[in-house]
């Protein structure tokens, strides 16, 4: 068929709004197209940075404590690198969630305004918010898988259970991404609040969620703070999957916490997007 005929045929069909889930997927497709062209720019932060953590702590720091008697007790007898790797996986998705859902989201409203372009089409605020969230989860799965391969190459993967760790890491990343997305979408300023978010929420969370040492090593009065950290729940889950150390009750508890955070965050993000795109 000639181009003109094709165009005419499609023109005859009345334009209609895409169905609900289809609309979400169209937003995902748009981000995917952007990523296909620009992935090199984000590869550094999403793969190289976690790799440096793996080298510095897993290999460097790990060799230092390998012979210390307390270390084996803390890791349950497995090498420090094997104990650390699932937690690093979760940490990397949380960090990329915080990164992906701050400036890029504000830019969608303020600088590039791509959300505003989408909102002029049949897509709704809810489809735009959820589409971006689904995309970020998909991208975390992709970069997480690359990270997992690197971890395995350095001997950090003890069993096939690390695939479960990847799933746990993606869930944790999504559970952090959703409320951060809602927060960013509600900002009217130039993103000054994001610095506070990185310094006072993300950084302490990555240091004190049991990634590098067990939470039990913290003073008793600090430990409840770790329990509200989604990364601690994600770390426990990822480790349980990789090392086979989880109890059913604990695993269900961590899952419930992360799923609840994801649900509430997504609900808030949809609300804020809908209001901001149709004031």
């Amino acid at each position, binding site marked *: 068929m000639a181009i003109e005929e094709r165009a005419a045929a499609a023109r005859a069909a009345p334009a209609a709004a895409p169905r609900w889930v289809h609309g979400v997927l169209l937003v995902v497709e748009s981000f995917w197209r952007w990523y296909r062209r620009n992935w090199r720019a984000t590869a550094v932060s999403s793969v190289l940075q976690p790799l440096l953590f793996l080298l510095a702590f897993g290999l460097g720091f790990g060799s230092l404590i390998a012979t210390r008697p307390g270390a084996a007790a803390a890791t349950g007898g497995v090498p420090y690198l094997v104990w650390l790797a699932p937690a690093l996986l979760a940490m990397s998705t949380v960090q990329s969630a915080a990164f992906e859902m701050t400036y890029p989201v504000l830019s969608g409203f303020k600088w590039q*305004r791509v959300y505003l372009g989408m*909102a002029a*089409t*049949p897509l*709704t605020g809810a489809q735009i918010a959820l589409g971006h969230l689904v995309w970020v989860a998909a991208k975390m799965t992709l970069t997480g898988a690359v990270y997992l391969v690197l971890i395995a190459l350095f001997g950090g993967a003890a069993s096939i259970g690390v695939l479960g760790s990847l799933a746990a890491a993606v869930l944790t990343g999504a559970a952090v991404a959703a409320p951060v997305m809602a927060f960013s979408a509600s900002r009217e300023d130039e993103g000054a609040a994001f610095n506070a978010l990185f310094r006072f929420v993300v950084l302490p969370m990555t240091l004190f969620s049991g990634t590098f040492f067990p939470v039990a090593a913290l003073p008793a009065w600090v430990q409840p703070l770790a329990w509200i950290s989604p990364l601690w729940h994600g770390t426990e889950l990822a480790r349980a999957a990789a090392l086979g150390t989880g109890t059913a009750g604990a695993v269900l508890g961590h899952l419930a916490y992360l799923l609840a955070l994801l649900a509430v965050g997504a609900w808030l993000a949809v609300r804020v997007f809908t209001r901001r795109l149709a004031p």
Partner: protein
Amino acid sequence: MGDGLVQARDLRKRFGTFEAVRGIDVDVAQGEVFGFLGPNGAGKSSTMRMIACVSPRTSGSLQVLGMDPDRDGPRIRARLGVVPQLDNLDTELSVRENLEIYGRYFGLPRRHVRAKAAELLEFARLTERAEDRVEPLSGGMKRRLTIARSLVNDPDLLLLDEPTTGLDPQARHLLWERLYQLKREGVTQIITTHYMDEAEQLCDRLVVMDGGVIVAEGSPAELIERWSTREVLELRFAPEDRPAAADLERHAERVEVLPDRALLYTADGERSQAALHAAGLRPLSALVRRSTLEDVFLRLTGRTLVD
């Protein structure tokens, strides 16, 4: 007007305590180019956003393409083309990718979108830049791309919010020419502008808005005929021998004294000029021109349109 594409009655929009649109009636018919003319803050863009179904109305009734935006927003938007006041292109993607991705938002098949993008690149005269990123393009090219993008779903109604603001004269004329071509193809257009020459060039019919209400309505020629004289004599005087308004009023139907010049509204500018000369008035410069919508606006609101 049963076949109107847009029908608004006592349409209002309030943001907190500020009422941006204060009860307007609008009818836009199939195939016409309809304009909202007014200064910044007149309520044009707020009205436009309600018609575009991206801003719920506060009260009044509104029908777009026979549907209610509150209920059928996505279905209406599927048949609209929107050129926003500020470009929201994805500047990190190519010109072609911007068109294709936008077409996909309407759920159009990939093959169709590819063919449509090629056609629109021709229309916007951007075929040679198709694979370039959007970022380094000139303002005029970005604007043409935004207009091309708004046509990706073959819209029944095209909404253009200040389409040429910030462009140089050459880019503006090229855009006008493209919009005129769309008009000939029968695409109904609604345009907001604060440029009276743009409104005169493009619009079949327009409303003049000020302070959230419509102060006049008609074709550009009708508005000029009704609210102004055929010609205008523009005079500039040295500050020391600026005459009293009364001395000027004797030679014109109406006089507007602006900070930098005086406007004499008269049927025959040359004759008024001769009469002034005979009366001994010596302006630094005198210019006879035809009335424009700017004069209509000045008459209706007592203010000039731009700044």
